[in-house]
Protein backbone atom coordinates (compact mmCIF):
# COMPACT_ATOMS: atom_id res chain seq x y z
CA UNK A 1 0.00 0.00 0.00
CA UNK A 2 1.45 3.34 -0.95
CA UNK A 3 1.46 6.34 1.30
CA UNK A 4 0.75 9.97 0.48
CA UNK A 5 2.14 12.93 2.34
CA UNK A 6 0.29 16.18 2.58
CA UNK A 7 0.03 19.28 4.75
CA UNK A 8 -3.06 20.21 6.70
CA UNK A 9 -2.92 23.70 8.19
CA UNK A 10 0.83 23.56 7.69
CA UNK A 11 1.32 20.28 9.55
CA UNK A 12 2.83 17.32 7.68
CA UNK A 13 0.71 14.19 7.53
CA UNK A 14 1.29 10.78 5.99
CA UNK A 15 -1.65 8.55 5.20
CA UNK A 16 -2.40 5.63 2.90
CA UNK A 17 -3.36 6.30 -0.68
CA UNK A 18 -7.11 6.44 -1.28
CA UNK A 19 -7.85 7.99 2.11
CA UNK A 20 -9.96 11.13 2.17
CA UNK A 21 -8.85 14.53 3.39
CA UNK A 22 -11.35 14.12 6.22
CA UNK A 23 -9.69 10.89 7.35
CA UNK A 24 -6.29 12.56 7.20
CA UNK A 25 -7.53 15.52 9.23
CA UNK A 26 -9.06 13.25 11.84
CA UNK A 27 -5.85 11.26 12.08
CA UNK A 28 -4.00 14.51 12.66
CA UNK A 29 -6.52 15.69 15.23
CA UNK A 30 -7.69 18.62 13.11
CA UNK A 31 -11.40 19.18 13.69
CA UNK A 32 -13.55 19.58 10.57
CA UNK A 33 -17.28 19.86 11.17
CA UNK A 34 -19.43 17.29 9.35
CA UNK A 35 -23.09 16.35 9.30
CA UNK A 36 -23.84 14.12 6.34
CA UNK A 37 -20.71 12.01 6.82
CA UNK A 38 -21.23 8.80 8.78
CA UNK A 39 -18.49 6.26 9.23
CA UNK A 40 -19.41 3.02 7.53
CA UNK A 41 -21.73 4.28 4.79
CA UNK A 42 -20.82 5.96 1.52
CA UNK A 43 -20.33 9.71 1.44
CA UNK A 44 -22.64 12.01 -0.49
CA UNK A 45 -20.98 15.39 0.01
CA UNK A 46 -24.30 17.06 0.70
CA UNK A 47 -24.04 19.18 3.83
CA UNK A 48 -20.99 21.13 2.59
CA UNK A 49 -19.73 21.73 6.14
CA UNK A 50 -16.47 19.91 5.56
CA UNK A 51 -15.39 22.16 2.68
CA UNK A 52 -11.69 22.97 2.78
CA UNK A 53 -9.31 25.09 0.73
CA UNK A 54 -6.69 23.24 -1.28
CA UNK A 55 -3.85 25.16 -2.86
CA UNK A 56 -3.86 25.06 -6.62
CA UNK A 57 -7.61 25.27 -6.98
CA UNK A 58 -10.01 28.10 -6.33
CA UNK A 59 -12.82 25.66 -5.68
CA UNK A 60 -13.65 24.68 -2.14
CA UNK A 61 -13.50 20.90 -1.85
CA UNK A 62 -15.54 18.66 0.45
CA UNK A 63 -13.05 16.85 2.68
CA UNK A 64 -15.29 13.79 3.00
CA UNK A 65 -15.11 12.91 -0.70
CA UNK A 66 -11.75 14.38 -1.69
CA UNK A 67 -8.92 11.89 -1.87
CA UNK A 68 -5.54 12.86 -0.50
CA UNK A 69 -2.82 13.53 -3.07
CA UNK A 70 0.91 13.78 -2.78
CA UNK A 71 2.04 17.27 -1.80
CA UNK A 72 -1.48 18.54 -1.24
CA UNK A 73 -1.74 21.64 0.95
CA UNK A 74 -5.02 21.91 2.80
CA UNK A 75 -6.42 24.75 4.90
CA UNK A 76 -9.39 23.82 7.04
CA UNK A 77 -10.23 26.95 8.93
CA UNK A 78 -9.69 30.12 6.92
CA UNK A 79 -11.92 33.13 7.67
CA UNK A 80 -13.88 32.41 4.50
CA UNK A 81 -14.51 28.80 5.48
CA UNK A 82 -15.53 29.86 8.96
CA UNK A 83 -18.02 32.32 7.55
CA UNK A 84 -19.48 29.90 5.01
CA UNK A 85 -19.82 27.14 7.59
CA UNK A 86 -21.65 29.39 9.92
CA UNK A 87 -23.97 30.46 7.13
CA UNK A 88 -24.60 26.81 6.27
CA UNK A 89 -25.59 26.01 9.84
CA UNK A 90 -27.79 29.11 9.99
CA UNK A 91 -29.49 27.98 6.79
CA UNK A 92 -30.19 24.61 8.39
CA UNK A 93 -31.70 26.18 11.49
CA UNK A 94 -33.80 28.58 9.47
CA UNK A 95 -35.05 25.78 7.26
CA UNK A 96 -36.69 23.47 9.79
CA UNK A 97 -38.42 23.97 13.10
CA UNK A 98 -35.76 23.55 15.75
CA UNK A 99 -37.13 24.18 19.18
CA UNK A 100 -34.24 22.73 21.12
CA UNK A 101 -35.79 23.31 24.52
CA UNK A 102 -38.51 20.77 23.83
CA UNK A 103 -36.47 18.42 21.64
CA UNK A 104 -35.71 14.81 22.42
CA UNK A 105 -32.10 15.33 21.31
CA UNK A 106 -31.42 18.51 23.29
CA UNK A 107 -27.87 18.22 24.63
CA UNK A 108 -27.13 15.20 22.47
CA UNK A 109 -27.58 16.63 18.99
CA UNK A 110 -24.94 16.91 16.31
CA UNK A 111 -26.63 19.95 14.80
CA UNK A 112 -26.38 21.72 18.14
CA UNK A 113 -22.77 20.63 18.44
CA UNK A 114 -21.92 21.95 15.01
CA UNK A 115 -23.69 25.23 15.79
CA UNK A 116 -21.44 25.63 18.81
CA UNK A 117 -18.40 24.58 16.81
CA UNK A 118 -18.99 27.24 14.15
CA UNK A 119 -19.91 29.88 16.71
CA UNK A 120 -23.50 30.39 15.65
CA UNK A 121 -25.30 32.42 18.32
CA UNK A 122 -28.23 33.36 16.08
CA UNK A 123 -29.45 32.90 12.54
CA UNK A 124 -29.15 35.84 10.21
CA UNK A 125 -31.63 34.16 7.88
CA UNK A 126 -35.33 34.44 8.39
CA UNK A 127 -36.86 31.41 10.04
CA UNK A 128 -39.21 29.75 7.63
CA UNK A 129 -41.47 27.81 10.00
CA UNK A 130 -42.41 25.15 7.46
CA UNK A 131 -45.50 23.05 8.03
CA UNK A 132 -44.05 19.56 8.49
CA UNK A 133 -45.42 16.28 9.74
CA UNK A 134 -44.67 13.89 12.57
CA UNK A 135 -45.08 10.14 12.01
CA UNK A 136 -45.45 7.97 15.09
CA UNK A 137 -47.14 5.05 13.38
CA UNK A 138 -44.20 2.73 14.10
CA UNK A 139 -44.61 0.81 17.37
CA UNK A 140 -41.12 1.62 18.65
CA UNK A 141 -39.90 4.72 16.85
CA UNK A 142 -41.06 8.07 15.55
CA UNK A 143 -39.89 10.59 12.96
CA UNK A 144 -40.41 14.30 13.41
CA UNK A 145 -39.76 15.97 10.08
CA UNK A 146 -39.57 19.37 11.75
CA UNK A 147 -36.06 18.48 12.92
CA UNK A 148 -34.85 16.67 9.83
CA UNK A 149 -31.85 18.24 8.07
CA UNK A 150 -32.01 15.87 5.07
CA UNK A 151 -28.52 14.51 5.65
CA UNK A 152 -29.74 11.11 4.36
CA UNK A 153 -27.77 9.23 6.98
CA UNK A 154 -30.90 7.19 7.82
CA UNK A 155 -31.40 6.43 4.13
CA UNK A 156 -27.87 5.15 3.72
CA UNK A 157 -27.60 3.24 6.98
CA UNK A 158 -30.88 1.43 6.31
CA UNK A 159 -29.91 0.66 2.73
CA UNK A 160 -26.23 -0.13 3.10
CA UNK A 161 -25.96 -1.68 6.56
CA UNK A 162 -29.36 -3.08 7.33
CA UNK A 163 -30.19 -3.78 3.69
CA UNK A 164 -33.84 -2.85 4.13
CA UNK A 165 -34.02 0.47 2.21
CA UNK A 166 -37.03 1.71 4.12
CA UNK A 167 -36.07 5.36 3.60
CA UNK A 168 -35.53 7.60 0.64
CA UNK A 169 -35.91 11.23 -0.33
CA UNK A 170 -39.18 12.39 -1.86
CA UNK A 171 -39.85 15.58 -3.82
CA UNK A 172 -37.23 18.17 -4.60
CA UNK A 173 -35.87 21.43 -3.24
CA UNK A 174 -37.69 22.95 -0.32
CA UNK A 175 -40.38 20.29 -0.56
CA UNK A 176 -37.91 17.42 0.02
CA UNK A 177 -38.67 15.07 2.84
CA UNK A 178 -37.54 11.69 4.04
CA UNK A 179 -40.11 9.19 2.89
CA UNK A 180 -40.74 5.74 4.28
CA UNK A 181 -41.62 2.82 2.04
CA UNK A 182 -43.80 3.80 -0.87
CA UNK A 183 -44.80 7.02 0.88
CA UNK A 184 -46.56 5.01 3.59
CA UNK A 185 -46.66 5.59 7.31
CA UNK A 186 -43.49 4.10 8.78
CA UNK A 187 -45.47 1.59 10.81
CA UNK A 188 -46.92 0.11 7.62
CA UNK A 189 -43.63 -0.48 5.87
CA UNK A 190 -43.06 -4.24 5.82
CA UNK A 191 -39.41 -3.84 4.90
CA UNK A 192 -38.62 -2.21 8.26
CA UNK A 193 -37.00 -4.74 10.59
CA UNK A 194 -37.25 -2.41 13.61
CA UNK A 195 -33.48 -2.65 14.00
CA UNK A 196 -33.22 0.96 15.14
CA UNK A 197 -30.08 1.74 13.14
CA UNK A 198 -31.65 4.91 11.77
CA UNK A 199 -32.20 6.14 15.32
CA UNK A 200 -28.51 5.66 15.98
CA UNK A 201 -27.53 7.23 12.67
CA UNK A 202 -29.75 10.32 12.83
CA UNK A 203 -27.66 13.28 13.97
CA UNK A 204 -30.64 15.24 15.24
CA UNK A 205 -33.83 14.61 17.13
CA UNK A 206 -35.71 13.75 13.95
CA UNK A 207 -35.73 9.99 14.44
CA UNK A 208 -36.21 8.90 18.03
CA UNK A 209 -37.32 6.09 20.23
CA UNK A 210 -40.84 6.43 21.47
CA UNK A 211 -41.14 7.04 25.17
CA UNK A 212 -38.09 9.27 25.37
CA UNK A 213 -38.86 12.88 26.14
CA UNK A 214 -36.96 16.17 26.09
CA UNK A 215 -33.23 15.67 26.12
CA UNK A 216 -33.51 11.91 26.53
CA UNK A 217 -32.39 10.70 23.13
CA UNK A 218 -29.43 8.37 23.24
CA UNK A 219 -27.55 6.99 20.32
CA UNK A 220 -25.54 3.83 20.29
CA UNK A 221 -23.05 4.80 17.60
CA UNK A 222 -20.82 1.96 18.81
CA UNK A 223 -23.36 -0.49 17.41
CA UNK A 224 -22.89 0.89 13.90
CA UNK A 225 -19.12 0.95 14.30
CA UNK A 226 -19.21 -2.65 15.44
CA UNK A 227 -21.23 -3.79 12.45
CA UNK A 228 -19.07 -1.95 9.97
CA UNK A 229 -15.82 -3.28 11.47
CA UNK A 230 -17.23 -6.77 11.51
CA UNK A 231 -18.28 -6.54 7.89
CA UNK A 232 -15.24 -4.82 6.47
CA UNK A 233 -12.42 -6.18 8.59
CA UNK A 234 -14.00 -9.36 9.86
CA UNK A 235 -13.15 -8.40 13.41
CA UNK A 236 -15.90 -9.11 15.87
CA UNK A 237 -14.80 -6.72 18.57
CA UNK A 238 -16.62 -3.98 20.40
Amino acid at each position, binding site marked *: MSVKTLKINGVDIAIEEGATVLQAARQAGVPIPTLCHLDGVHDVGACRLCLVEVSGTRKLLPACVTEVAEGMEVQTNTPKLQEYRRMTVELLFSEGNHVCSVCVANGNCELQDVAIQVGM*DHSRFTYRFPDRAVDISHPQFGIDHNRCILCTRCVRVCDEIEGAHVWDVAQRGAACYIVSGLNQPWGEVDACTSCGKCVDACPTGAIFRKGSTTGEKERDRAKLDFLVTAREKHEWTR
Partner: protein
Amino acid sequence: MDKIKFATVWLAGCSGCHMSFLDLDEWLIELAQFVEVVYSPVGCDLKHYPDNVDVCLVEGGIANEDNLELILQVRRQTKILISFGDCAVTANVPAMRNMLGGAEPVLKRAYLELGDTSPQLPYAPGIVPELLDRVLPVHEVVPVDIYMPGCPPPADRIRATIEPLLHGEMPAMVGRDMIKFG
Protein backbone atom coordinates in the same frame (compact mmCIF):
# COMPACT_ATOMS: atom_id res chain seq x y z
CA MET B 1 -18.24 56.52 38.83
CA ASP B 2 -21.57 56.85 37.03
CA LYS B 3 -23.68 53.75 37.36
CA ILE B 4 -24.60 51.80 34.25
CA LYS B 5 -28.24 52.29 33.31
CA PHE B 6 -29.57 48.74 33.17
CA ALA B 7 -32.93 47.44 31.99
CA THR B 8 -34.66 44.15 31.32
CA VAL B 9 -37.82 43.72 29.28
CA TRP B 10 -40.19 40.81 28.98
CA LEU B 11 -41.82 40.24 25.60
CA ALA B 12 -43.20 36.95 24.23
CA GLY B 13 -41.48 34.52 26.56
CA CYS B 14 -42.43 32.49 29.58
CA SER B 15 -40.44 34.63 32.08
CA GLY B 16 -38.08 31.69 32.58
CA CYS B 17 -35.15 33.81 31.49
CA HIS B 18 -36.00 36.37 34.14
CA MET B 19 -36.26 33.56 36.71
CA SER B 20 -32.83 32.39 35.62
CA PHE B 21 -31.64 36.00 36.06
CA LEU B 22 -32.87 35.88 39.65
CA ASP B 23 -30.88 32.66 39.98
CA LEU B 24 -27.78 34.85 39.96
CA ASP B 25 -28.48 35.00 43.70
CA GLU B 26 -25.86 36.92 45.66
CA TRP B 27 -24.14 38.15 42.48
CA LEU B 28 -27.19 40.31 42.03
CA ILE B 29 -26.01 42.32 45.01
CA GLU B 30 -22.66 42.86 43.36
CA LEU B 31 -24.39 43.78 40.14
CA ALA B 32 -26.46 46.35 41.99
CA GLN B 33 -23.28 48.21 42.89
CA PHE B 34 -22.51 48.73 39.22
CA VAL B 35 -25.91 49.33 37.76
CA GLU B 36 -28.94 51.42 38.22
CA VAL B 37 -32.01 49.39 37.25
CA VAL B 38 -34.11 51.78 35.20
CA TYR B 39 -36.74 49.40 33.87
CA SER B 40 -37.44 45.73 34.64
CA PRO B 41 -40.36 43.49 35.52
CA VAL B 42 -38.26 41.97 38.30
CA GLY B 43 -35.99 44.81 39.33
CA CYS B 44 -37.93 48.03 39.69
CA ASP B 45 -41.34 49.59 39.45
CA LEU B 46 -40.84 52.21 36.75
CA LYS B 47 -43.48 52.14 34.03
CA HIS B 48 -41.75 54.05 31.25
CA TYR B 49 -38.74 52.91 29.33
CA PRO B 50 -36.29 55.80 29.81
CA ASP B 51 -33.81 57.41 27.43
CA ASN B 52 -30.13 56.58 27.31
CA VAL B 53 -30.23 53.09 28.71
CA ASP B 54 -26.80 51.49 28.56
CA VAL B 55 -27.67 47.79 28.64
CA CYS B 56 -30.97 46.02 28.17
CA LEU B 57 -31.73 42.31 28.41
CA VAL B 58 -34.67 41.47 26.17
CA GLU B 59 -36.53 38.28 26.95
CA GLY B 60 -38.98 36.92 24.40
CA GLY B 61 -39.79 37.35 20.75
CA ILE B 62 -42.09 39.88 19.13
CA ALA B 63 -45.60 38.45 19.12
CA ASN B 64 -48.03 41.38 19.32
CA GLU B 65 -48.44 45.10 18.78
CA ASP B 66 -47.28 45.92 22.30
CA ASN B 67 -44.10 43.89 21.92
CA LEU B 68 -43.43 45.67 18.65
CA GLU B 69 -43.93 49.14 20.04
CA LEU B 70 -41.75 48.44 23.06
CA ILE B 71 -38.87 46.85 21.14
CA LEU B 72 -38.71 49.78 18.71
CA GLN B 73 -38.55 52.12 21.69
CA VAL B 74 -35.96 49.96 23.42
CA ARG B 75 -33.77 49.99 20.35
CA ARG B 76 -33.97 53.75 19.97
CA GLN B 77 -33.16 54.37 23.61
CA THR B 78 -30.58 51.68 24.33
CA LYS B 79 -26.90 51.37 23.61
CA ILE B 80 -26.42 47.64 24.05
CA LEU B 81 -29.39 45.43 23.35
CA ILE B 82 -29.00 41.80 24.39
CA SER B 83 -31.26 39.10 22.98
CA PHE B 84 -31.79 37.21 26.17
CA GLY B 85 -32.71 33.54 25.80
CA ASP B 86 -33.98 31.38 22.95
CA CYS B 87 -37.34 33.15 22.61
CA ALA B 88 -35.55 36.41 21.88
CA VAL B 89 -32.95 34.73 19.65
CA THR B 90 -35.10 32.26 17.70
CA ALA B 91 -38.70 33.08 18.77
CA ASN B 92 -38.66 29.51 20.15
CA VAL B 93 -41.79 27.96 21.67
CA PRO B 94 -44.10 30.98 21.18
CA ALA B 95 -43.23 30.82 17.48
CA MET B 96 -44.56 27.28 17.15
CA ARG B 97 -47.80 29.02 16.29
CA ASN B 98 -46.14 30.33 13.13
CA MET B 99 -46.47 26.89 11.60
CA LEU B 100 -50.23 27.46 11.53
CA GLY B 101 -49.60 30.30 9.12
CA GLY B 102 -50.99 33.47 10.69
CA ALA B 103 -52.73 34.99 13.70
CA GLU B 104 -56.23 34.14 12.62
CA PRO B 105 -55.91 30.35 12.45
CA VAL B 106 -54.14 30.46 15.81
CA LEU B 107 -56.93 32.40 17.49
CA LYS B 108 -59.57 30.17 15.93
CA ARG B 109 -57.75 27.06 17.06
CA ALA B 110 -57.27 28.30 20.60
CA TYR B 111 -60.54 30.08 21.28
CA LEU B 112 -63.04 28.35 19.03
CA GLU B 113 -61.93 24.80 18.30
CA LEU B 114 -60.48 24.20 21.73
CA GLY B 115 -62.85 26.41 23.71
CA ASP B 116 -64.78 24.20 26.14
CA THR B 117 -67.54 26.55 27.22
CA SER B 118 -68.87 29.43 25.15
CA PRO B 119 -66.14 29.57 22.51
CA GLN B 120 -65.57 33.13 21.24
CA LEU B 121 -62.73 35.17 19.84
CA PRO B 122 -61.26 37.69 22.29
CA TYR B 123 -62.03 41.25 21.26
CA ALA B 124 -60.97 44.15 23.43
CA PRO B 125 -59.34 46.89 21.39
CA GLY B 126 -56.94 48.99 23.41
CA ILE B 127 -56.78 46.44 26.20
CA VAL B 128 -55.71 43.16 24.63
CA PRO B 129 -52.93 43.86 22.10
CA GLU B 130 -53.45 42.50 18.59
CA LEU B 131 -51.37 39.48 17.67
CA LEU B 132 -48.86 39.93 14.87
CA ASP B 133 -49.19 37.43 12.06
CA ARG B 134 -45.94 35.79 13.03
CA VAL B 135 -43.83 35.73 16.15
CA LEU B 136 -40.42 37.12 15.27
CA PRO B 137 -37.03 36.87 16.93
CA VAL B 138 -35.86 40.29 18.13
CA HIS B 139 -33.13 40.68 15.51
CA GLU B 140 -35.63 40.33 12.69
CA VAL B 141 -37.18 43.57 13.94
CA VAL B 142 -34.28 45.64 15.27
CA PRO B 143 -30.49 45.23 15.32
CA VAL B 144 -29.19 43.29 18.29
CA ASP B 145 -25.75 43.72 19.82
CA ILE B 146 -25.31 40.52 21.81
CA TYR B 147 -27.05 37.17 21.47
CA MET B 148 -27.36 35.00 24.56
CA PRO B 149 -29.17 31.76 23.61
CA GLY B 150 -30.48 29.20 26.12
CA CYS B 151 -33.88 28.10 27.31
CA PRO B 152 -33.34 29.57 29.76
CA PRO B 153 -29.72 30.70 29.68
CA PRO B 154 -28.19 29.36 32.90
CA ALA B 155 -27.27 31.96 35.52
CA ASP B 156 -23.56 31.41 34.89
CA ARG B 157 -24.03 32.30 31.23
CA ILE B 158 -25.94 35.45 32.19
CA ARG B 159 -23.20 36.49 34.52
CA ALA B 160 -20.45 35.73 32.00
CA THR B 161 -22.30 37.89 29.49
CA ILE B 162 -22.98 40.88 31.72
CA GLU B 163 -19.80 40.96 33.77
CA PRO B 164 -17.42 42.07 31.01
CA LEU B 165 -19.85 44.85 30.07
CA LEU B 166 -19.50 46.28 33.54
CA HIS B 167 -15.83 46.78 32.77
CA GLY B 168 -16.43 48.24 29.36
CA GLU B 169 -15.64 45.03 27.48
CA MET B 170 -17.71 42.88 25.17
CA PRO B 171 -18.27 39.28 26.27
CA ALA B 172 -16.97 36.46 24.08
CA MET B 173 -20.07 34.54 23.06
CA VAL B 174 -18.34 31.29 22.08
CA GLY B 175 -18.32 27.71 23.22
CA ARG B 176 -20.90 25.37 24.67
CA ASP B 177 -21.14 27.29 27.94
CA MET B 178 -22.12 30.49 26.19
CA ILE B 179 -24.13 29.68 23.04
CA LYS B 180 -25.78 26.28 23.27
CA PHE B 181 -29.42 26.51 22.34
CA GLY B 182 -32.10 24.81 24.43
